């Protein structure tokens, strides 16, 4: 665990600064640095932010069409031939759609393939077919796989290099398009196996990753107004996971809560729960996340509300749990009674 208090530049109030299409530059720069980087896409290049790499290195960029299982096999072959392969599509398609190919051609074969899964969980507004709410679970239970769930523009900017430097399969789970800027890139260094202590408190410890960390900071700010102080441990490296860091924050609170932009079954919360049990560490423990149900094709804010993942709902849930309530997340869910106009894919859709 790294103490990273001074690297945090967002205090959880008034919305974080936003940066756009950070991965676009990161993967292009990686290509400039290392001639063995190749990029694969499955019918989406601009949308997966690989367009700058493709334009700079057209001979090293391959759009293989709407065929994810084939793409994974191709990635394995190119890696076996010595390339460092970055394969891109939405998180749902690159994991569960091609699961058997990943297990055999990437993981068991232990090939140097980096799989980039975009639009994780509620960051996808295309409905259950397009929502990765099980990708962490699938990748965690796959031997040889490393998983990074990226939470801000700084992490996204560093992740391609981190993945490149790691020999072997890596799953990068990240938002596309607009990303929150939470960490100072001069002070924050993304590392596999590391966790980051980003807020200090005594009442509740929140263990979080990915796009939930921004929400955790906002929830902590709301809790503070109620006199509840919050530890936050940011855990981008879901596998391998930093056992010591989790035990450390678990020992500094009255209750431990995990945040998942994922099904609560098999996500970060499950991984943290395993750490606690396997180390015989007892603490009141609750997993906030998608409570084992499918969603709808709707905007991120709508999905967050129906799942109970808005910062206000997280704060309410945390307080309810601290007060000893059973199933505290259930009480904060907002039933979809009203249709809000203007949902759906509003992002500009161009090639």
């Amino acid at each position, binding site marked *: 665990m790294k103490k990273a208090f001074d690297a945090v530049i967002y205090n959880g109030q008034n919305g974080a600064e936003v940066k756009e299409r950070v991965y676009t530059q990161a993967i292009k720069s990686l290509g400039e640095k290392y001639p063995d980087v190749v990029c694969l896409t499955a019918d989406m290049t601009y949308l997966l932010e690989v367009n700058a790499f493709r334009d700079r290195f057209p001979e090293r960029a391959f759009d*293989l069409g*709407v*065929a994810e299982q084939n793409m994974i096999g191709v990635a394995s072959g190119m890696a076996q031939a010595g390339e460092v392969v970055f394969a891109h599509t939405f998180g749902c398609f690159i994991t569960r759609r091609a699961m058997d190919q990943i297990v055999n051609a990437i993981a068991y074969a232990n090939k140097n393939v980096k799989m980039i899964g975009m639009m994780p969980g509620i960051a996808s507004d295309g409905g259950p*077919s397009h929502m990765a709410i099980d990708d962490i679970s699938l990748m965690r239970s796959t031997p040889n796989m490393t998983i990074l769930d990226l939470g801000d523009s700084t992490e996204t900017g560093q992740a391609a290099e981190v993945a490149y430097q790691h020999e072997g399969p890596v799953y990068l789970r990240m938002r596309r398009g607009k990303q929150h800027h939470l960490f100072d890139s001069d002070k924050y260094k993304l590392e596999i196996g590391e966790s980051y202590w980003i807020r200090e408190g005594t009442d509740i410890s929140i263990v979080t990753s990915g796009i939930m960390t921004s929400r955790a900071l906002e929830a902590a700010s709301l809790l503070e107004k109620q006199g509840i102080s919050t530890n936050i441990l940011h855990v981008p490296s879901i596998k391998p996971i930093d056992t010591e860091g989790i035990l450390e924050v678990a020992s500094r609170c009255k209750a431990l809560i995990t945040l998942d932009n994922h099904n609560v079954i098999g996500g970060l919360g499950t991984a943290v729960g395993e750490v606690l049990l396997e180390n015989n560490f007892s603490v009141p423990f609750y997993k906030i996340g998608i409570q084992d149900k499918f969603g709808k*094709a709707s905007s991120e804010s*709508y999905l967050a509300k129906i799942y109970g993942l808005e910062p206000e709902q997280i704060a309410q849930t945390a307080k309810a749990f601290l007060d000893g309530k059973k199933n505290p997340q259930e009480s904060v869910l907002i039933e979809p009674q009203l249709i809000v106009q*203007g*949902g*759906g894919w509003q992002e500009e859709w*161009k090639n």
Partner: protein
Amino acid sequence: MSIDTLLTPGGSLEKFPLEDLVIKLKKSVFEMGRAAGGGYIGQGLGSAEMIAALFFKKLRLDPSDPTNPDRDRFLLSTGHYAISIYAAMAELGIIDRKLLEYYSADGSPLEMIGSETTPGLEIGGGSLGQGLSRGIGHALAAKLRNHTWKTYVYMSDGEMQEGQVWEAALVAAHQQLDNLVLIIDNNGMQVEGRINKITSLDPLAEKWESFGWNVKEIDGNNLSEVMNALDTIPENNKPTIIISHTVMGNGISFLHDREDAHYVKWSEENHAKALSELGGNNNEKSF
């Protein structure tokens, strides 16, 4: 108004000529785009003739009882085309026309990518390349139990890049499923642009013939060719594929055959221009 009220089946098939129904269907597509600020409008335009022919003339479908066990099964494999199906269902009264205003809105039953949670849709089609397999399941079950209904699967051409399609193609022919009709909206486009620049499907008709299918190739934006193809499905122990050559954004100048129109934003200006170019009887508002 609550969603439940809007989902109540009702109404009846209006006895318009098919040409007029195509126009009405397209107008509904525009209205959905207008309500949502965007949508799969190019696909809606390209597929309008085939969807109108199927839903208003060809499918065995009782609009007042859309889940009747004896209905023909229409499986939308490419869920993105749901915009056309919503328009057709509104015309038939299977869903309330007012529901179209909620196309792709947060929490709406009319999701941008069709799913079986929407009344009237048999399957979810967001993850591509799976519809034909599910159609084979229906067709096999119909044969097993001597049901007379047919199964129609509607798929896009880009979707055929998914390998599962070809697994299904083998099985449908081997099982001699002449109660199964596959319709390809062959507009030559996928998200990234023209299919031939990404992963070509050519020669398409020859591929399916060699897989043991009856193959029909038609101009899918020509109503008489569409109706003729649907009226002459052979019963020769082979499944039939209709390769329906269409134009994405057909007939609307600023969308017609555009490579970057997989998903389009829809402004009031676009809306007005599209309506003015549509032709037909424009006096009647869709809703």
